[in-house]
């Protein structure tokens, strides 16, 4: 483990995390980190969904990340057990120009891909060029993250230089994003879409097979650049519905599931495994959103949107729903408990966050009446899985109390996405997750639609866009936090899309799984290079 941090720079540029109580989780950083790591064994874990592609650039689903991460490496990474500190992965060291306009990475020497070819600066450049300017036929979900990068240069075979168009306070997080895995330049030249078909990186495990609907297998890559790692002989990820997963974990047929379970599922697993259970809990960088379609009447009227936000008893909902679902803390647009989040006192000033529920609902009724919508009826589009249904039922119950009638439509994932993209909905039970708490990563959900496709409220608000851009250029933490507060206040007031509740992450696994790091996002720490089995 020592080679990981030796000679590597800690993340200083953003001044994030160090010494700050950024995280809420109660458990240790590493799952049962005690004891000397043992080599050998196969980790068996479950993943609740099938991967739609093998290309990490083209998607954002955990179903891909939880299978593909062990096969790849990134330039930087979040330090295991010490989120949000950033350390090098392929990069041995890096420097940042004082004006934040140039980032220079020195790569580790003698890193090889699974096919034995060396991984050098050209591979990093080819990968980043593909992500920020995808060739025809290549889908890049990462493209907006690289808007401020002007060029990627490779002065020698182990040096990569990123030159910026403008300061981007989130860029270090972007370099550490688990989605920005490095592909082979030679292979990309012959087929820009090879990552969608072939799994071949520099990660700790080589790809063996994927049987759709059944399993995914990886075996230890002996040429992995971190000496002594990985500890496991291999891993087997089994595709399994959440309900089956709980039974499989309780019955010791699998050892772990890394996304998260409900409090009740946790209790069932603990009852079944007893002292062999390891439970890690944290707030989760994932929140449920009530998104209004601002291009449809009456949701183009801010009074209607604000009234519907005002009617929600978030504090009461949090206290109750956290006992029966993955829904948990009350929060604003950034994760509660993170460096950037508002205090309770600040939140209580936003519409729908005040503690006086009667006053909130009286104001909501007044706003609806003023907007001529006393008898409002709406259709709430929702996914057909938990905890989306729980969130939907909660919202319907809250709105019923101000006289709003709701038709609850629950659809499959594909139809849910299709409705978002086409704008064919009135009100949507939406969600958003990211790999880091950086405000640029999370506030993008709330900007104008013409600026970010993920902002599916289909609203246009240039003031929010201005604040978003300004915080993205602001490096000084206090000043950036102030801008984030301004952004949140404006967004809550206009209520194009409003948070309902944030999720709580509970990971319950068999205690024999050691060395895995808990974090407030299920997208990082999944390369399994530090994981070992205490059997």
């Amino acid at each position, binding site marked *: 483990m020592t080679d990981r941090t030796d000679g590597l720079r800690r993340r200083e540029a953003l001044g994030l995390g160090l010494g700050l109580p950024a995280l809420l989780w109660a458990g240790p950083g590493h799952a049962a980190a005690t004891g000397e790591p043992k080599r050998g064994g196969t980790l068996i874990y479950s993943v609740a969904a099938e991967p739609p592609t093998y290309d990490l650039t083209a998607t954002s689903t955990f179903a891909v990340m939880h299978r593909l991460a062990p096969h790849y490496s990134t330039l930087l990474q979040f330090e295991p057990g010490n989120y949000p500190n950033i350390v090098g992965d392929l990069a041995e060291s890096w420097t940042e120009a004082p004006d934040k306009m140039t980032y220079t990475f020195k790569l580790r020497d003698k890193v090889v891909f699974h096919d034995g070819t060396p991984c050098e600066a050209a591979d990093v450049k080819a990968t980043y060029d593909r992500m920020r300017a995808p060739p025809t036929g290549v889908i890049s979900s990462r493209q907006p993250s690289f808007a401020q990068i002007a060029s990627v240069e490779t002065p020698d075979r182990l040096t990569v230089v990123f030159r910026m168009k403008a300061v981007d306070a989130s860029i270090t997080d972007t370099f550490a994003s688990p989605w920005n895995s490095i592909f082979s330049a030679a292979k990309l030249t012959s087929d820009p879409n090879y990552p969608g078909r072939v799994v071949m990186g520099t990660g700790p495990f080589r790809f063996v097979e994927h049987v759709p609907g059944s399993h995914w297998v990886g075996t230890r890559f002996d040429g992995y650049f971190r000496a002594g790692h990985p500890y496991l002989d291999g891993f087997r990820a089994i595709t399994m519905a959440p*309900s089956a997963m709980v039974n499989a974990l309780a019955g010791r047929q699998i050892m772990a599931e890394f996304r998260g379970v*409900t409090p*009740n*599922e946790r209790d*069932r697993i603990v009852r079944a495994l007893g002292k062999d259970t390891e439970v890690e809990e944290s707030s989760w960088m994932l929140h449920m959103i009530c998104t209004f379609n601002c291009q449809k009447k009456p949701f183009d009227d801010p009074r209607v949107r604000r009234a519907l936000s005002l009617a929600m008893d978030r504090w*009461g*909902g949090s*206290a*109750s*729903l956290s*006992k*029966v*679902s993955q829904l948990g803390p009350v929060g604003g647009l950034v994760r509660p408990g993170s460096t950037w989040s508002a205090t309770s006192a600040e939140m209580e000033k936003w519409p729908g966050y005040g503690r006086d529920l009667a006053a909130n609902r009286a104001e909501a009724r007044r706003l609806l009446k003023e907007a001529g919508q006393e008898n409002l009826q709406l259709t709430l589009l929702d996914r*057909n899985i*938990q905890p989306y*249904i*729980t969130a*939907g*039922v*909660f919202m*319907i*119950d809250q709105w*019923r109390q101000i006289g709003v009638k709701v*038709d*609850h*439509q*629950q659809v499959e994932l594909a139809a849910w996405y299709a409705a978002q993209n086409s704008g064919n909905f009135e009100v949507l039970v939406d969600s958003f997750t990211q790999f880091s708490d950086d405000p640029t990563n999370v506030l993008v959900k709330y900007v104008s639609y013409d600026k970010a496709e993920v902002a599916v409220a289909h609203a246009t608000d240039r003031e929010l866009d201005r604040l978003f851009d300004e915080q993205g250029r602001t490096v000084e933490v206090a000043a950036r936090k102030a801008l984030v507060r301004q952004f949140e206040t404006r967004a809550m007031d206009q209520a194009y899309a409003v948070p309902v509740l944030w999720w709580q992450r509970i990971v319950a696994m068999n205690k024999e799984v050691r060395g895995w790091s808990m974090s407030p996002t299920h997208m990082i720490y999944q390369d399994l290079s530090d994981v070992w089995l205490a059997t």
Partner: protein
Amino acid sequence: MSATIAGLARSGPGAFGRFARGAGRFARQQPLGTLGLLVILLMAAAALGADLVSPYDPEAADFAAMLAPPSPDHILGTDSFGRDILTRLLFGARTALTIGLASSFLGCAAGGLLGLTAAYWGGRVDMLLQQLVDIILAFPIIVLALVVVALVGRNTVAGIDLNLIAAIAVPIVPRAERVIRAAALGVRAMPYIDAARAGGYGDGYIILRHMAPNVMAPFLVLLSAYVAQAILLEASLSFLGLGVTEPKPAWGLMLSGDSANFYQEAPWMILFPGLAISLAVFAFNLFGDSLRDWLDPKFRT
């Protein structure tokens, strides 16, 4: 006018008397069917009087009473939103009966008309219809309903999903067609049908006026039997997330979602809806079987 009223007054007690005698005979000859009928009537009363009987709103969450076990306040306990299970069962009976009766009637009526048509025309028309029916019958009833509901989506009018009713009715159509056709073939061979044709009556008139009344007995039996099937299908579709959606009360829906998560901690969440579905299906099947026996002349002799 007074003559009409007087006529009704005269015919009223007579009709009621005939009905009462018939009901009495049914009760004596078919005690199990009578029991089924009583359960059905109780269910109908619960559905109609749900608003009067229950002190709770079936959709109102009560976070202070989440997962409460059966108690004087909540006789059958509450679910994970604190909603009263008994109230949701009573209102769920409304959903089950509305969708069950409507789907069964629609499916049996459409199947009956096709069966009559096939029997009346015979020949190629009959052959084509039977081949089509064979194809549809090859699909399990739940699979066919799933396909239809997935294809047509939702179309809610006054809180009732018309497409769900249609989706449940579709698998009933070929089954009803087969039974009604078999009965109608015997009717078609009767001399009075040929006489009607010779008399110049239209095909539609003959089918509806002379054939349909003579297959009414199997039609009624089918209708009652398929209400049970429709209730079960509605519960299955709701359980699979393709039927009634939260927070509307429906028995199948009450068995799915959070009930599956909390069946160990709050078994009342699945126990009572399961019992309600079983009892309703059992009652309609008992009644349907008894009705068939009662209406069948062979059983009378």
